[in-house]
């Protein structure tokens, strides 16, 4: 039986990756963000899982608007890092875990989540920046194989928050029913509040973000009840991508222990958030 040992929620802003790739993490405008990551990174370095599942969205790099899958899963042995138009990030390609992918796919389809299957997929900053937040210096390889789980957050109608939370719960059951004894880390990515276009571009809603950060730990059902309209109004047209945090949270135990969280404004045009939860400490509390 496989076991989720931790969940990491983090923003995926491309400039966070760029700051790392260019050695600017100690620049005055970035230092507080990266210093805030440090306790999470240290804990994660001591809790390496056998495999990870990364819930993310593509940004016009691995997939285009010909086909807009609401939910998808990668089943490949390898995922190349995409060239987004300015050269690929200098980070390792991603090793996958096709056996786990196909197990999750079957169990999730059995539960009514009809995922689109990606046998080939180039992963963009939405995927590699969260890996870098976790592991700043991967060397030749990321710490473990990673399975991509894709969510459409770019084209309305995005899946509802409730559906994402339910998918996460089904994902948790699918992981628990895997016949290999492996430990699993799960990453929910995107957010926090931000909007890139329109007269409201640059909006940040720190109050909403603080509520979300608290509730993702203690009361995710409250977040699952938010409508798309509420999410777009409160968190911005791109802030709605925080629904991906709910997939991560749904796959975890009802009670989790917060290891560390951090909030920083701005990463480019975005409020950057990080929250790390230990899934094994909550049961006896």
């Amino acid at each position: 039986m496989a076991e989720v040992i931790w969940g990491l929620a983090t923003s995926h802003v491309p400039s966070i990756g760029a700051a790392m790739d260019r050695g600017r993490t100690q620049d005055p405008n970035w230092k507080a963000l990266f210093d805030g990551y440090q306790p999470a990174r240290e804990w994660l370095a001591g809790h390496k899982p056998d495999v990870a599942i990364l819930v993310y969205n593509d940004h016009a790099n691995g997939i285009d608007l010909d086909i807009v899958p609401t939910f998808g899963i990668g089943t490949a042995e390898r995922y190349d890092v995409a060239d987004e138009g300015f050269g690929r990030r200098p980070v390792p390609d991603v090793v996958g875990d096709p056996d786990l992918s196909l197990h999750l796919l079957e169990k999730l389809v059995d539960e009514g989540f009809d995922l689109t299957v990606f046998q080939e997929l180039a992963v963009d900053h939405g995927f590699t920046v969260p890996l870098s937040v976790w592991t700043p210096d991967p060397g030749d390889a990321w710490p473990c194989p990673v399975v991509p789980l894709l969510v459409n957050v770019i084209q309305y109608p995005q899946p509802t928050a409730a559906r994402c939370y339910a998918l996460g719960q089904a994902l948790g059951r699918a992981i628990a029913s895997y016949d290999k004894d492996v430990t699993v880390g799960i990453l929910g990515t995107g957010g926090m509040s931000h909007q890139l276009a329109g007269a409201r571009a640059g909006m940040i809603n720190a109050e909403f973000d603080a509520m979300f950060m608290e509730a993702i730990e203690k009361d995710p059902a409250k977040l699952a009840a938010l409508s798309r309209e509420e999410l777009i109004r409160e968190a911005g047209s791109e802030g709605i991508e925080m629904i991906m945090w709910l997939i991560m949270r749904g796959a975890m135990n009802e009670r989790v222990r917060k290891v560390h969280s951090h909030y920083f404004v701005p990463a480019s045009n975005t409020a950057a958030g990080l929250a790390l939860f230990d899934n094994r400490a909550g049961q006896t509390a």
Partner: protein
Amino acid sequence: MLTDIPGTPVFDGQTSRRGFRMNKLFMSLRFAANRERFLADEGAYCDEFGLTPEQRAAVTGRDWQAMIDLGGSIFYVYKLAMMDGLSMQYLGGVFTGMTEQEFVAAMRAGGRSGG
């Protein structure tokens, strides 16, 4: 249907239908060979992708707001901005009537108000 949220373009299905050919053009700019071909004759490249006259004028005239209004997704429009060496903060300034420096300063001051 989503009710209108002031100042907030929502990239929905109808918008995506309107912008489909233009967004395909933006997507193609990920590749250096296509960027070279685009820069050699922008109008011809737009025609090749089947843009409407309004979209063609917005792209060749770098009217960023019009590209959004005519169905561009910000993530796709950004490919063209990147090619021009422009940042998302520059675009944020365009959308809000500020210079890039003013927009960056507003973000560093905690971001713009959500209301």
